[in-house]
């Protein structure tokens, strides 16, 4: 299933533009990511981070440009279960009457029959995924009764169950407890070793330095893109945040 081809690109976004009712949300954005790379997506609120994710998942149509996933079109990538999206907590109705198990099972829907009746292999995949995020005891609990961190882990488990080669994570560290933060960090290293490609948005500059091989700084378009050590400079960050320094710390080393 997961072809490890380090030569070809997992994600290729070329000059993509997105507009909502005539208002430009993102223009001329480029991104190329290979297997095993972790890329941080950094920008202000409203800089187009979520729009970028929406374009890569196919949730909004791009008005210009081209997106190739594993060398194929987005539609084929969707059918191949190539992309998994882990939403921000605010984007989800937390009171929806579904359990942890139900949510993680939704990761398998794309590869099930029309009635979405789980096979033995689907059940096993869900069990494994829930186990990896350490939620087995809570698997029958409604998501409304979970903490923010547990909910985040539930959606991470859904992405694991989907067995996607590309993970898109919108603010994976926002509002989570220390235990969840540690668990997510460990999972990222495992994902990287498994050859998965990860694109994550974050406000936290320390996380970028810690995990991200690459960083993509955006403000409606790409401000800077490249190796974290080269691109993630105070000057670039300042220009990304429109001349204002971000309200988060750079970590001890800067």
């Amino acid at each position, binding site marked *: 299933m997961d072809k490890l081809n380090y030569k070809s690109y997992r994600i290729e976004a070329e000059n993509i533009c997105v507009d909502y*009712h005539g208002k430009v949300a993102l223009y001329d954005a480029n991104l190329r990511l290979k297997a095993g790379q972790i890329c941080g997506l950094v920008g202000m609120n409203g800089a187009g981070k979520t729009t970028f994710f929406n374009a890569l998942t196919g*949730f909004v149509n791009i008005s210009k440009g081209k997106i190739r996933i594993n060398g194929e079109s987005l539609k084929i990538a*969707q059918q191949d*279960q190539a992309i998994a999206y882990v939403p921000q907590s605010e984007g*989800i*109705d937390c009171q929806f*009457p579904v359990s942890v198990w139900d949510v993680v099972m939704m990761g398998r*829907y794309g590869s099930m029959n029309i*009635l979405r009746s789980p096979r033995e292999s689907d059940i096993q995949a869900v069990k494994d995924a829930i186990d990896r995020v350490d939620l087995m005891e809570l698997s029958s609990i409604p998501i409304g009764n979970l903490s923010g961190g547990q909910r985040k882990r539930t959606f991470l488990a859904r992405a694991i169950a989907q067995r996607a080669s590309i993970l898109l994570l919108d603010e994976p560290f926002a509002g989570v407890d220390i235990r969840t933060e540690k668990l997510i960090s460990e999972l990222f290293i495992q994902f990287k070793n498994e050859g998965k490609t990860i694109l994550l948005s974050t406000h936290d500059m320390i996380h970028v330095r810690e995990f991200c091989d690459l960083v993509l700084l955006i403000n409606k378009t790409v401000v800077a893109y490249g190796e974290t050590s080269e691109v993630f400079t105070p000057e670039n960050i300042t220009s990304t945040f429109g001349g204002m320094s971000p309200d988060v710390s750079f970590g001890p080393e800067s």
Partner: protein
Amino acid sequence: MNLCFLSTNITSFVTDPLSHEFMRKALLMSSLVAAVCGFLSSYLTLKGWALMGDAVSHSVMPGVVVAYALGLPFSLGAFIFGVGSVALIGFVKQKSRVKEDTVIGLVFTGFFALGIVLVSKIKSNIDLHSILFGSPLGISLSDVKQTVFISLLVVMLLSVFRKDLILYCFDPRHAKTVGINVLFLHYLLLTCLSLAAVVGLQTVGIVLVVAMLITPGATAYLLTDRFDNMTIIAVISAIISSVFGIYLSFWFDLETGGSIVLVQTFIFLFAFLFAPRYGIFKFKKLFSNY
């Protein structure tokens, strides 16, 4: 002695109406309609489509009138106008800067007004009162056939696409990401809404049909954290409301549609106050220690 008198009274309260053919039919058909609307209501309340339900149910009015005038099945006309109104809402919203809830209000009142004007202009045997307020006691045989057919169709659609629809209501972006046709699900739910509004308006009428489409779901939402249970509770509370409402209307000579919806509202109120976990008085705390 007294007790015996009471029990005879209750028995006759229940059985007397059943001796009438029209009452048996009304009870049966209303229960069917309530079950279908209740089934759908668990999706609509979670999707947040209450206003949409109101819009669609009002917009079917001109469709019903035109279909009657042309001798077509009224469900066909209602369906076309129901789906058409939603398409129009989407179009106006996209092409103008007016906010969505304003557009919804604007479009459905426009359609509704057109329906009322058409009734006054087209000379036919349409009874405005029965369209607006329902007439479960006067359902004709052809209405019965249509209602049964539409009800089965809606239940079948909702059952086959149950998991996809839950996912669509919960997280449409994930649905899209794993290659599920979200647009299809959107129109599927809309189609079911239009069809349910069509059968619902026979029992409680256009004005109140939205209650059939949201109240049972809202009640059930207060009582459970499981979608399956929510659907079951919604269906049961809808059927109970229908039966009880019809009995009340029979014995106290009340408007039937209004009685049914009032009973639904009272059941909601009861859940709102006394639901174990989500009610105002959280009784669970009294009974258990977690």
